[in-house]
């Protein structure tokens, strides 16, 4: 086994911070195999605690790295180390960057990458916006990076997958662990439909609170731009934003209502100078670096092929674009229609992707 990989695998499972220990080891300017040949004296010099040293000793005696590599091979998981040619360039340079990644799925993935992050408990509007951003990035050839969590993360991944775009989920668990429950299908699609699941933790690592903020730095570094859709002041998305700032990435935020805690963080970012994301096509043309004529063309074609809207459907759409979160009652009164007609218009508009359900019994126009 490659000594470098062996050391990095040992570190990943030792319970220490692999990046920190490795940075210290690099200063020693020793060949990688010295790490386990020299043993305890070196480890304590590098600042490993007694417990970590015990773990390292045990793991190398049990030939854990070899077994882990074998497990990874069996599960179709690639082990990528920082010296590999395919190591993402965005992940080099910082001392706290990971040195080893478990990757399940396609690698490398070409295209400008956009990280879309936000709270797990977002509004239906935030969910839909994340979905549309993911979709727009995917359709114009970009890559959506997110954390595979519920809420905004999931919506962004799904938006991208809906147009068969590649999407990367950076997980806070082992790549073979599904967390949160209910994301089995999503993770499977990510791994198989041109995207990837990425993690720096050994296979089978269960979810632990401290791992999620840690993986956020990888999300930030893997992408060229970061979009915060909806985030409260204290949230993982804000940690990602801080990491992105340190890594020199462009930060965008979707403006939210100022009375909602769920948007306080993303709005604060805007105040602090993040780019306001006020139009998805404009953002995508900048982010993916491609004039979106192609994308527009596609959308126009799609609209032509969809069922042409009736006069009543247009009337409803206009009302919803004016102000969202309307109930059937309001639409019926303002559009001067029977509730039955409102329902049938809403169903048609929803199928055509122009309207979404924003709450129980409330409809809004899809953000564009």
């Amino acid at each position, binding site marked *: 086994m490659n000594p470098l990989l062996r050391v990095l695998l040992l570190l990943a499972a030792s319970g220490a911070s692999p990046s920190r220990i490795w940075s210290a080891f690099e200063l020693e300017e020793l060949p990688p195999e010295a790490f386990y040949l020299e043993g305890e004296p070196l480890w304590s010099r590098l600042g490993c605690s007694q417990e970590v040293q015990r773990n390292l000793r045990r793991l190398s005696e049990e030939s854990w790295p070899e077994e882990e590599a074998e497990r990874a091979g069996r599960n179709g998981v690639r082990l990528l180390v920082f010296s590999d040619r395919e190591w993402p360039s965005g992940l080099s340079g910082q001392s706290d960057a990971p040195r080893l990644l478990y990757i399940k799925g396609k690698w490398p993935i070409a295209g400008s990458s956009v990280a879309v992050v936000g709270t797990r408990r977002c509004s239906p509007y935030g969910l839909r916006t994340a979905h549309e951003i993911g979709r727009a990035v995917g359709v114009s050839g970009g890559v959506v990076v997110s954390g595979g969590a519920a809420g905004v993360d999931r919506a962004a991944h799904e938006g991208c997958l809906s147009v068969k775009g590649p999407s990367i989920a950076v997980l806070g668990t082992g790549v073979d662990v599904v967390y949160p429950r209910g994301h089995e299908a999503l993770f499977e699609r990510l791994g198989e439909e041109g995207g990837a699941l990425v993690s720096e933790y050994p296979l089978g690592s269960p979810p632990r609170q401290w791992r999620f903020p840690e993986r956020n730095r990888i999300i930030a570094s893997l992408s060229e731009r970061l979009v915060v859709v909806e985030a409260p002041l204290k949230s993982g998305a804000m940690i990602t934003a801080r990491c992105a700032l340190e890594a020199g990435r462009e930060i965008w935020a979707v403006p939210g209502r100022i009375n909602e805690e769920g948007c306080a963080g993303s709005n604060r970012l805007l105040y602090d100078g993040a780019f306001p994301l006020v139009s998805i096509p404009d953002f995508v043309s900048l982010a993916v670096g491609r004039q979106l004529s192609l994308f527009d063309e596609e959308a126009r074609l799609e609209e032509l092929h969809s069922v042409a809207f009736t006069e009543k459907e247009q009337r409803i759409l206009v009302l919803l674009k004016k102000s969202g979160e309307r109930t059937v*009652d309001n639409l019926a009164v303002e559009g001067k229609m029977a509730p039955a007609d409102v329902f049938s218009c809403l*169903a048609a508009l*929803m199928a055509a992707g122009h309207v979404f359900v924003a*709450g129980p019994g409330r409809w809004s126009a899809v953000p564009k």
Partner: protein
Amino acid sequence: MNPVRGITLRGIEAVGVEVEVEITGGLFSISIVGLPDAAVRESKERVRAALRSLGLAVRGRVAVNLAPADLPKEGAVLDLPIALGIASAMGSLPELPRGIFLGELALDGRLRGVRGAVGAAILARNESVPLFAPAENAAEIALVKGCEAYAVDNLADLFAFFRGEIELPPVPEYRLEENPFFADPDFADIRGQAGARRALEIAAAGHHNILLIGSPGSGKTLLARALRGILPPLSHEELLETTLIRSTLGLPFEDGGRPPFRSVHHTASTVSICGGGSALRPGEVSLAHRGVLFLDEFPEFRRDLLEGLRQPLEDGEINVSRATGSVKYPCRVLLVVAANPCQCGWDGDPVERCICSSVERERYRRKISGPILDRIDLHVAVPRLLPEELVAVEGAGGESSSIVAERVRFARRIQRERWARHGFSCNAELPERVVKRFLNLSEGVRPFLSSMAGKLRLSGRGIGRVLKVARTIADLSRNEQTDVPHVAEALAYRDGGLWR
């Protein structure tokens, strides 16, 4: 010896019981054999006192046999036949006429109403013998056509009748009143919720089960109650079916052909909902027969209970089996299910804040989807209207329940006529395999549906449900053909409540 006939209940069915009495000399005692329950055993005190009130003093050893001996007898309904049997054995009565006797005795000889009088009337009709029943039960007995029944106030009257001294008033045949019943609450009283009202109209017209999802205070319960007012009134036969079940439980007769509405709380036991107990009583689901069964706070119901309800709801009857036997009860109900959008109830609300964690949300979601939900054709969200929204819709007054009920009744009639030769009575009953063949789809529907199916991720079963609902919508608008707008509207009720 001349046996007197009474009844006992087995499920909703009345079973004939022969009461034989023998009196021999000796110290006074009454013993009752033939598997009597406590109420039957205690009847000896009531019977003795009632007879004494007529001046008959029971003396000697009285043996009462209830045949068939292996059938458990229950309730006070056997008081009257036991009293008649004893009086007859004492020689104080002329030859008794043939007939079935039922009634609970008061100590002064008055007859009290009993459970199971309707079942007894059916038994009497089938055997073409007269029925003598307490006057309190006269109204419900009247429902049974072709039954010769007499209402009896007290034991003294009955004895006088036997001696030919007086005539007993025969129970007149029941006439269902034509004038529609009073809807409470009336649709016109509900402000806003035009969408949910429309969905309820469709539910009533096609007998589609319906799910209402909305935050607390949005009016789910009110809407569910209002559904009762737009259902077609019960026919004579249906009223008889519902009264038979109510009578088995001793519930008072409800006149007017108003469909029943039973609201079940989620803490209710399986027995109280499905029926059972050693006496094999009908449960709430049977009491709601031909009417509405309302399950509020649906996700709080126990999973096994819902699983148990699934098959009965589909078949329209429930089999209650216990060690003491098994009975079938009818339970053709319109199921109305209400749920909050999440555990705390405020998910997606424009003002209130939802405090559920994502795990809680996921758990709630799993609870809400499931086998029963698959059987519910209409899913409707009930938005909590904000004060300003209520003001905005103030002008648009709703139709009154009677107008809606008229449309519903018409749609039901069309369906009955259309499906009569297939053996169904409403659109919701259509089995999956016949749906597409008989719905008379217009030309545009098929391409429309296939274009939608991809976008909305419709399953085969989902499409079947949508088409059934679309057919009902077409019936409501008196269209022969199921057209694209009908299908589009039906699509809106597919999962309107579950939006995440």
